[in-house]
């Protein structure tokens, strides 16, 4: 069947009755869910084949969440485009998982021990059930068996829940509910097994058996507890290691794409000092932005725009433009004018100042101000020819049209352009400082 390539991945569905196996299977095969469920029940009647198949799928097939997480764990590394991320052509029509998981391997790799344990338990349970069913079908055996199965199901569904809890960080109330379910499942299984083993069902024998098994269980717990704790700790360590590994891979990918490329470029252009400085500055800016960016901060704020403009000026003219910003605000039309005026001032400062340019942005409750300072020889505004639009139109005129102010102070030590914008643009013309 060539249509297999376009099938959604086999994952357990969240639209579940027991564990979402039937719904997942139906989605994967493109069959109606009801049909699959009825088929499963019918198969269960045929000597429990359906039950075994269901249990097997339950253990082996991940939920959509797990599948997505497992795939997400691979870093999107641009270093290794040669490493195929998924089977070719495994485009999905499903929405939950991005790629079709290699589900037949997944469990064996990640939950190997759990699956072995589960399979062993299943085998034992299957043999027990087969034996008991083979002889005759006494109610006294069937009920405890059902209790065992029910208890196991409850506990196992809990296992699913806790896996998801790790992802969603569920509340404590849910956790308590989970423990209650686990305890109920355990009680059911223990009671069922006891009744089944003691056979007769007489209270006296059951009590004795209970006592004995509790004693044995206690002993086993005593022996296994340190081992289990160690195992748990190893698991935690392994998980932490894996997280670190992922982070490292991500950093390596980024450095490869940015810093190494720039260093190679710098080596090739070593003769041109101007280019080297420009490349180094641009790379520094990029790396800084990557290292220190605040993911919680809104993008596209005024300070971001000013910094972007400064970077552009730095790239085109080669002189450093240092931006210091205090406060921030969302962009409006007048703020855009302020950014454009700042850009013009930075261009002038970089071009005529011939050195580093200092830019200071301050946003306070009532006012937004930008200061652009260079250390060039300075100029007199009166001497600027009328036809030069840079200063007159692009800076002063533009700010006035948007209800702001602009002033230029120039001495032999340098020039400073001061741009101001009131919080709510009005027509008032503020005195130039």
């Amino acid at each position, binding site marked *: 069947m060539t249509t297999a390539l376009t099938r959604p991945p086999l994952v357990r569905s969240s639209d579940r009755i027991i564990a979402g196996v039937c719904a997942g299977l139906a989605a994967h095969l493109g069959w109606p869910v009801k049909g699959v469920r009825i088929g499963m029940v019918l198969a269960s009647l045929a000597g429990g084949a359906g039950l075994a198949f269901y249990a097997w799928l339950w253990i082996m097939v991940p939920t959509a969440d797990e599948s997505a997480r497992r795939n997400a764990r691979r870093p999107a590394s641009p270093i290794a485009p040669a490493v195929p991320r998924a089977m070719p052509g495994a485009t999905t029509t499903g929405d939950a998982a991005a790629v079709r998981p290699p589900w037949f391997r997944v469990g064996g790799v990640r939950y190997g021990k759990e699956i072995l344990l589960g399979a062993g338990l299943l085998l034992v349970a299957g043999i027990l059930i087969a034996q008991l069913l083979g002889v005759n079908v006494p109610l006294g055996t069937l009920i405890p068996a059902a209790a065992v199965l029910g208890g196991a199901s409850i506990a196992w569904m809990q296992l699913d829940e806790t896996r998801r809890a790790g992802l969603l960080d569920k509340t404590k109330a849910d956790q308590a509910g989970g423990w209650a379910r686990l305890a109920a499942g355990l009680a059911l299984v223990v009671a069922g097994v006891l009744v089944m083993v003691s056979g007769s069902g007489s209270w006296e024998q059951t009590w004795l058996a209970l006592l004995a098994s509790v004693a044995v269980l206690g002993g086993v717990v005593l022996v296994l507890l340190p081992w289990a704790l160690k195992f748990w700790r190893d698991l935690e360590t392994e998980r932490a290691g894996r997280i670190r590994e992922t982070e490292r891979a991500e950093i390596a990918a980024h450095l490869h794409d940015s810093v190494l490329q720039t260093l190679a470029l710098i080596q090739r252009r070593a003769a041109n000092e101007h280019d080297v400085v420009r490349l180094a500055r641009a790379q*520094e800016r990029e790396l*800084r932005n990557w*290292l*220190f*960016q*605040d993911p919680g*901060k809104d993008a596209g704020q005024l300070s971001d725009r000013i910094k972007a403009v400064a970077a552009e000026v730095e790239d085109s003219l080669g002189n*450093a433009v*240092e*931006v*210091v*910003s*205090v*406060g921030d605000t969302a962009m409006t039309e007048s703020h855009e004018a302020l950014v454009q005026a700042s850009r013009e001032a930075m261009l002038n400062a970089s071009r005529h100042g011939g050195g580093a340019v*200092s830019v*200071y942005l*301050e946003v*306070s*409750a009532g006012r937004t101000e930008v*200061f652009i*300072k260079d250390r060039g020889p300075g100029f007199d505004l009166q001497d600027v020819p009328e036809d030069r639009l840079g200063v007159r139109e692009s800076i002063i005129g533009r700010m006035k049209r948007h209800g702001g102010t602009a002033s230029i102070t120039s001495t032999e*030590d340098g020039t*400073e352009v001061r741009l101001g914008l009131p919080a709510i643009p009005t027509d008032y013309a503020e005195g130039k400082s």
Partner: protein
Amino acid sequence: MTNIQGTGPQGTGPSRPAQPVRVVIVDDHGIFRSGLKADLDASIHVVGEAATVEQAIAVIAQERPEVVLLDVHLPGGLGGGGREVIAGSAALLATTKFLALSVSDAAEDVVAVIRAGARGYVTKTISGAEITDAVFRVAGGDAVFSPRLAGFVLDAFGTAPADIADDELDRLSARELEVMRLIARGYSYKEVAKELFISIKTVETHVSAVLRKLQLSSRHELTKWAAERRLL
């Protein structure tokens, strides 16, 4: 800037002292240390170098330099970097001044070393002449503020002279705010003095006062701010 007066023991201007300033450079990058040594003025004597927190504390205790040029990020110790070096040399703070030197502009890095006791902070990209000037200034007992650090201070203390704060350490005076704002705009101390019609000595006093507040203020917002900001 020969007219900047310091309060050094010789009473000379910071850029032309009678005796060379003894300096220890602490940085884990050997290339950077040697580059810095070559860049520094001849009147600065580099008497020691260190690459880790432990080395730095040992070298500083042995050489007792006037100024330590201290990288914020250092290997060794308990992972505290430059902050840990200052803490480990606390007994010498009266005679040895620390000037933080960092490639990092991250607010929490800078504020952490300043609060630990550094007298100033400059970025590693500044020129040899500027760093020489900063060394003399710190040796003279003054504080060195880069525009970026001034920006941090304004961000942390607020740009309006607060009147609700009950502790004097928790706010900047109107004059201190003006000084900080001008430094953030890229003004040198001399230019600040000229702009505000005050003496350079007064500017230095204001900057030192701001530094003290930055170091001593228990202002809740300051620490919270420093922890929260990962922005430039």
